[in-house]
C-alpha cells in the first residue's frame, strides 16, 4: 500500500458545540493537485487549520505521509514539509521580496543558526531563481509593502515554494486578481504541481476549471462529492448546495443547459437576453418563483462556466429526444439576439456532432422560433 500524502480520517472539529468539520474523510495521493470548493462556511479554511496544526481535531486523526499531525505544533508541521498560503496575502511588508524569500528558504530555523550563520550561496541562488519564476526579479529589493496585490499573492506562493514543502496548501490564490493575473497564477500552480502535491481552495469556478483535475466539494463540514469538474458541475447534490435550494434538475437537464450556455458564450458575450432564454426555459420547466429566478441567474453565470468544449458535452447526450432538446434550446439561445458569425460557426459544429436528419433540424428550428415569438 502506498502512503497517502494526506489522509484524514473521521475528523470532527467543534467550537463550543458547533461542528465546523463533521466526520470528514479525505485522502490524496503523492503529486496530486486537488481543488476544494464549497459554499461559505463549508469548513474549507478550518480544514486547512487542522492540517497545519492551527486547530486540533476534536475527534479523528490527520496523517501526513503516515505521520500523525496531532502531535506537532504549527512550526513543526511546517518543517515536516507542509506549506500554507493564506486567504489574504501575508508577506512581511517591511522586508523586500528577496528577504521574504530568504527567510522562508532558510533550512536551519533555530535561533542560533539565524543569529550566527550567513545565508549560504546555494540558498541565495535558489532565491534568485524563485524571484524570476514569480516575476519579481525587478522588484527584488523594494519593500514588499510597495507591491501590488497580485504581486504579493505571488510572493507568498514563492515563499511557500522556497520552503520546499512536499504539500502546498493554497487558500484562494486568485481572490482580487485581474483575469490575466488569474491565468498566470493558474499556470504557476500547474507547473508547481509537477513536483509538489497541492491542495487549492477556490471560489472562482472558472479558475477551478482551468486547473482542476480532481475536485472535492465540502458542505457543512463534510465531503459532499468528489470527482472531476464535469461530474461536479452536473451533480444534483452539488447544484443544490450551490444554488442554496431544492432543485429538481437532473444531470441530463444540466447537460442541456450547459450546451445552451456554450452556445450563448460562443460570441464571448453571454448577453442578458440569452441568459433570459435559458432562465425562462428553466422556470417554465420547474415553475420557480421570481425571487428564485433572480438568484438562479446569479448562480448560473458562475455555474455554467464558459468555454466548455462541445466535444466534451455532446457525447454525453444519450437519447434521441435529449439531442433534439439540446438543438432546440441552442437554436433558441442564438436566435434570441442577432446571430453573428461566431455563433453560426459553433452552431454548425453542434449540428454536425448531433447528426440529426435535416428535416428534424428544420422542424426543431421552426419550433424554437415559435417558442421565442410566443414569448415576444
Amino acid at each position, binding site marked *: 500500500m502506498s502512503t497517502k500524502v494526506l489522509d484524514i480520517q473521521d475528523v470532527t472539529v467543534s467550537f463550543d458545540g458547533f461542528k465546523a468539520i463533521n466526520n470528514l474523510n479525505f485522502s490524496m495521493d503523492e503529486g496530486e493537485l486537488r481543488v476544494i470548493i464549497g459554499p461559505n462556511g463549508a469548513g474549507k479554511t478550518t480544514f486547512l487549520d487542522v492540517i*497545519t496544526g492551527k486547530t486540533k481535531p476534536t475527534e479523528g486523526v490527520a496523517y501526513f505521509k503516515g505521520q500523525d499531525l496531532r502531535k506537532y*505544533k*504549527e*512550526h513543526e508541521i*511546517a*518543517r515536516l514539509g507542509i*506549506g*500554507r498560503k*493564506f486567504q489574504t496575502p*501575508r*508577506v*512581511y*511588508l*517591511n*522586508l523586500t521580496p528577496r*528577504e521574504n524569500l*530568504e*527567510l*522562508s528558504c*532558510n533550512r536551519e*530555523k*533555530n*535561533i542560533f543558526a*539565524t*543569529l550566527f*550563520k*550567513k*545565508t549560504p550561496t546555494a540558498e541565495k541562488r535558489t532565491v*534568485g531563481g524563485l524571484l*524570476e519564476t514569480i516575476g519579481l*526579479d525587478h522588484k527584488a*529589493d523594494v*519593500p514588499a*509593502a*510597495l*507591491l*501590488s*496585490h*497580485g504581486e504579493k499573492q505571488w510572493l507568498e506562493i514563492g*515563499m511557500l515554494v522556497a*520552503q520546499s514543502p512536499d504539500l502546498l496548501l493554497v487558500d484562494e490564490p486568485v481572490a*482580487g486578481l*485581474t483575469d490575466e493575473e488569474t491565468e498566470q497564477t493558474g499556470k504557476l500552480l500547474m507547473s508547481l504541481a509537477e513536483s509538489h502535491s497541492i491542495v487549492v481552495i477556490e471560489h472562482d469556478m472558472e479558475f477551478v476549471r482551468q486547473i482542476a483535475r480532481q475536485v472535492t466539494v465540502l458542505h457543512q463540514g463534510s465531503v459532499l462529492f468528489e470527482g472531476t469538474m464535469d461530474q461536479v458541475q452536473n451533480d444534483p447534490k452539488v447544484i443544490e448546495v450551490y444554488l442554496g435550494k431544492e432543485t429538481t434538475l437532473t444531470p441530463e437537464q444540466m447537460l442541456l443547459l450547459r450546451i445552451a450556455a456554450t452556445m450563448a458564450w460562443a460570441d464571448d458575450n453571454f448577453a442578458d437576453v440569452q441568459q433570459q432564454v435559458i432562465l425562462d426555459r428553466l422556470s417554465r420547466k420547474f415553475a420557480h418563483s421570481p425571487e428564485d429566478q433572480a438568484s438562479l441567474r446569479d448562480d448560473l453565470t458562475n455555474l455554467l462556466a464558459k468555454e466548455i468544449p462541445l466535444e466534451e458535452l455532446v457525447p454525453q447526450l444519450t437519447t434521441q429526444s435529449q439531442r433534439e432538446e439540446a438543438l432546440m434550446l441552442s437554436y433558441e439561445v442564438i436566435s434570441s439576439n442577432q446571430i453573428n458569425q461566431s455563433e453560426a460557426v459553433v452552431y454548425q459544429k453542434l449540428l454536425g456532432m448531433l447528426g440529426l436528419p435535416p428535416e428534424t433540424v428544420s422542424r426543431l428550428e421552426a419550433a424554437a422560433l415559435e417558442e421565442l415569438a410566443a414569448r415576444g
Partner: protein
Amino acid sequence: MTTDVAVQPRRAAKASQKRKLTIEIVAVVAIALFLVLVLPLLLSGFRLNLVGRFLALAIVALGIDLIWGFTGLLSLGHGIFFALGGYAFAMYLELNTLGEGQLPDFFGLYGVTELPWFWQPFNSFPFTLLAIFVIPAIVAGLLGYLVFRNRIRGVYFSILTQAALVVFYNFFNGQQKLINGTNGLKTSTSVFMGQEVGSDSMRMVFYITTVVALVAMYALCRWLTSGRFGRMLVAIRDDENRVRFSGYDPTAFKVLVFAVSGAIAGIAGALYTVQSGIISPQFMDIAFSIEMVIWVAVGGRATLVGAMLGAVLVNMARSLLSERFPDVWLFFQGALFLIVVTTLPDGIIGWGRRSFGAAVSKALGLAPTDLPYLDDTPEAEAITETPEFAEK
C-alpha cells in the same frame, strides 16, 4: 544573461553597504570621542552628570526599540529591568562601603541583625557585574516565556507588562526589611574602588563608562538587527503567523529578544543609579516606563539612532523646562507625544530621512535608505493601493 544584469546592481549595493558601515563606524567613534574628550571641557560638572544620566537612559531606549520598534511588542514594564540592574549595583555598593561583618544602616532600623541571604553574593564585584544584566534578562526571559508561550500579544502583552511592573513596585516598596522599601538605596555616599561614588572623579569614571556602554549596546543592537535575525524580528512584527507557518518558532525568538532588551535595561539602570545617587521603587513608577516608550516614539521606532536621540532630547528638554517652569513639564511632555504621533509618525529620524534622506545619501555617495514602518503610515497605504486594484 539575466544573471549578469542582476549581479551588477547587487555588487554596487554591496559596495554602498560597506561604505555605509564605514561612515557609520567613523561617526559613532567621532561622537563617542566628542562626548568623552570635548564635552567635559564645555560643561560644568553638574551638567555633565545630567548628560551622563541621559546617555544611560538612551541605553534603555535602545532596549525598548529592539523589543517594540523592531519586534512590535510594546513593553510598558521596562522599569522592572531598569530597577533590577540599579538595585544589583546599589546592593554591591552598600556592602562594599562597610567593613567585614557590618550591616547597612537601614537594617538596624527594622531590627534586622543578619544579612538576608540574597544580599550575600553581592559582596563579590564580578558577581554584581554579571547580575546587573543577567538577573533582568532572566526575569524578562521568564516573564516573556510565560506570556509568549500562551500567544498573548498586542495590547494584552502591554497590559501584562504593566501589571508585572505594579507587582514589582509594590513588592520593593513594601519590603523594608529586605531592601529598605520605599526609601530605596542611596549610592552617592557609598565607596567604589576606594572613592566616594558621588565624587567628581568617580562621576567622570561613570560618565565615560556610560558612553562606552552606550556604544557597545548600540553595536550589539546593530548586529542583532542587521542580519537574518533582525529580519526575523521585523517578520514577527509584520506577521507572526506567517513566521510560524514558515517553520520558525516565534516564541523562542521573542523570549530571546525580550531577555536581551531586559538585560540592556538592567545595564542602563545600574549606570543611571550611580549617576543619580539613589535607586528606589520610584524607578518602577508606571509613568517612567511609559516615558521610555515616548522617547523611542519621538526619536523614531526601529531606527536605534532615533531611540537614543529621543531619550537624550526629551530628557534635555525636560530638565531645561522644569528648571524654568517646574509646573508645565508634564503638559509639555504630553503635547510633545501628541504632536509626534499625529504629525511625525516615524519620529524625528523618520521625518529626517523622508525629508533629507535622499540628499544626504547622495552627498555621501550611498544608495537611498528604506524608511522604517512603511505599513503604518497612511502614505504607504496610498502607495499600496495600485490603481488597477482600486478599480476592482
